[in-house]
């Protein structure tokens, strides 16, 4: 039974935290007591588990909307409070069974020993929470790519690209005014998280109002992820219809272009670094997205996509729109519009 991508994402994130804080516990034990035992790691791992669960809780989502530094401090503070409460209760109960007196327990809880332990745990939490934030600044998994130097020399690879654009963004921008339009985009982009995780894609870049998504052919073709992404975003927008209408008076409408092919992946820049995709497929995907208005479609893909999956699918319907001469392409490209067949059934997919 394969796990839902979102469950897998959470499990991976929580287990990373368990191991990381476990190692911190071990190091603390070595530094502090100059001994090594299963205790240091286990205690750290338990704290890590607590941290992981809290990071995926509603509390974290609430605090997460604060600015970076405030969010990190507030999270670390709140978590350590909860952790201290949990461990003190556990210690108290354990002491109770071991026949310790209340005074002994009180003396321990206020000893420099305990203060240092809590202080250290706070620092570890703060570091972990900040690193997670920084990882988001870079994009998930990107840090590992830089550290390994994997794309220091360009590498050839097959990739699926999806350009997602807001329909009539100019008109919306004029209506909302610059400040509200910016907030509108902020809100819209924030809602892309779940669709991205659920479709196992990677957000490559924000270009103006557009976003560029990338999949490896395997991940993109699996469960038709690259196509499902578009409809997941639409569904998310539909769910938040009232919120968008209430706050901005307008609901985002999206269009997208999908294409696939061979590109080069390269680390560029030495001052400000970036991982870039070079090659025709990415431009073609952009052109396909731009063709949407012309043919009155919301979601277009190139016929090349069918080397990855069959055009006969029970969930999606592909309608041929004909051959198009796209700018920068010598040969005309066959385009198909994509629609979802059963709106209701797809909601319990996976």
């Amino acid at each position, binding site marked *: 039974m394969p796990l839902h991508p979102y469950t897998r994402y959470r499990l991976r994130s929580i287990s990373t935290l368990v191991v990381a804080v476990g190692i911190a516990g071990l190091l603390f034990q070595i530094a502090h007591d100059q001994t090594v035992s299963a205790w240091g790691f286990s205690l750290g791992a338990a704290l890590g588990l607590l941290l992981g669960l809290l990071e995926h809780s509603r509390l974290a989502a609430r605090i997460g909307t604060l600015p970076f530094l405030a969010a990190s401090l507030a999270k670390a503070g709140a978590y350590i409070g909860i952790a201290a409460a949990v461990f003190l209760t556990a210690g108290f109960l354990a002491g109770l069974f071991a026949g310790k007196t209340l005074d002994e327990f009180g003396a321990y809880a206020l000893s420099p020993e305990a203060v240092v332990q809590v202080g250290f745990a706070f620092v570890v939490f703060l570091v972990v929470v900040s690193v997670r934030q920084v990882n988001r600044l870079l994009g998930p998994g990107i840090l590992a790519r830089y550290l390994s130097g994997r794309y*220091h020399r360009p590498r050839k690879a097959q990739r699926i690209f999806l350009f997602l654009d807001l329909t009539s963004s100019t008109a919306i921008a004029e209506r909302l005014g610059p400040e509200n339009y910016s907030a509108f985009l*902020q809100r819209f982009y924030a809602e892309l998280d779940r669709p*991205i995780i659920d479709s196992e894609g990677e957000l490559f870049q924000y270009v103006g109002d557009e976003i560029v998504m990338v999949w490896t052919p395997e991940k993109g073709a699996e469960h038709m992820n690259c196509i499902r992404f578009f409809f997941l975003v639409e569904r998310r927008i539909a769910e938040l219809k009232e919120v968008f209408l209430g706050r901005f008076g307008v609901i985002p409408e999206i269009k997208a272009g999908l294409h696939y092919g061979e590109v080069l992946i390269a680390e560029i820049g030495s001052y400000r670094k970036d991982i870039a995709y070079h090659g025709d497929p990415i*431009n073609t995907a952009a052109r396909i997205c731009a063709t949407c208005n012309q043919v009155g479609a919301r979601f277009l893909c190139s016929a090349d996509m069918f080397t990855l999956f069959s055009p006969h699918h029970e969930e999606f319907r592909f309608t041929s729109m004909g051959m198009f001469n796209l700018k920068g392409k010598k040969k005309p490209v066959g385009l198909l519009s994509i629609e979802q067949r059963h709106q209701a059934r797809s909601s319990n997919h996976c």
Partner: protein
Amino acid sequence: MRQNNLLKILFLTLYWVCAAVFIVVYDGVVLISDVERLTGTAVSVDILANLGIVVAVTLVAGAAIAACEVLYLNNLLRRRPLGLALLLKTAFYVTNICIFTTLAILFITADQLDQGLLHATTLRLVATYMLSPRGVMTIAYWSIAVMSALFVLQVSEKLGQGVLVSFLLGRYHRPREETLIFLFMDLKSSTAYAEQLGHMKYSRLIQDCFADLTETVVRHDAQIYQYVGDEVVLTWSLRKGLANGNCLAAFFDYDRTLREREPYYKATYGVMPEFKAGLNLGQVMVAEVGQLKKELAYHGDALNTTARLQEQCNAFLKKLLVSEPVREALPEQSMFEFHPVGVLPLKGKQQPVSVYEAVAISM
């Protein structure tokens, strides 16, 4: 020295002083209480005096290491993969840390024993200490302190100057309007190059071109906002962009850098890369966007206009097109001359924009 470098050195030094304060207080409070508990005798240590000594030493050593890193080592290793660079730096700094810690311990021990530096007893005690868990932990602690600080700096540089700080402070957590200068630079005839060179060589050409941009960016105080394919977007605040004509000078500086490297480009790729550019100034909204992948994004007409200027270079047969607001903002007596080349109608705007060609007089 550049303000930017100075800030980096300041950050590193402060970071390490904090680390020093922490370890001294920790040693003072916890270890002493441990020793007292184990030996049953009261130990008196003057934490304040210790703090003074350690902070002073850290200030000097930290500033030296920071200067070495920011002014020399970082530039030397900039073109290496990040992981390799960090590894090489770790090796270098840990070696230094070992040497300096040993020396410090040697002096202290010699002083306490009232013996010569190379006296057998002194050396034996120093060796014992350095190989004890305490000694190893001291080295490990300082290695982590040094490496984590350098890592923060690397990440900050990767994100673009000032971006990490803006995120930390939540400056653009709510969208903010700012007046900025934008320079869009685009590789000329990139489609032809891509076909002529093949994908792999083309990708390496772009890598080389953007790596050559580093000097210009540093010299002219620019920020790299984004790379979009074969295009790069530089931004400045009004103050930084107008000072010394930075925003214009940057383009000519980059152009010259590429021309100086012509033999290399000709030999490696058989082509000479040239960039065309649009320069504009105006109000945009700056906002933090995204959750899973956060970014500082700029939105506004000023950006679209800049892109249009850059696109029109070919039509006007110019390398650099400048908008009216930029020409007005730059002082008269600057090292540039502006020649009007025409007007550019813009989508959604009733008044077309006047467009100028900028020519460097004294470069």
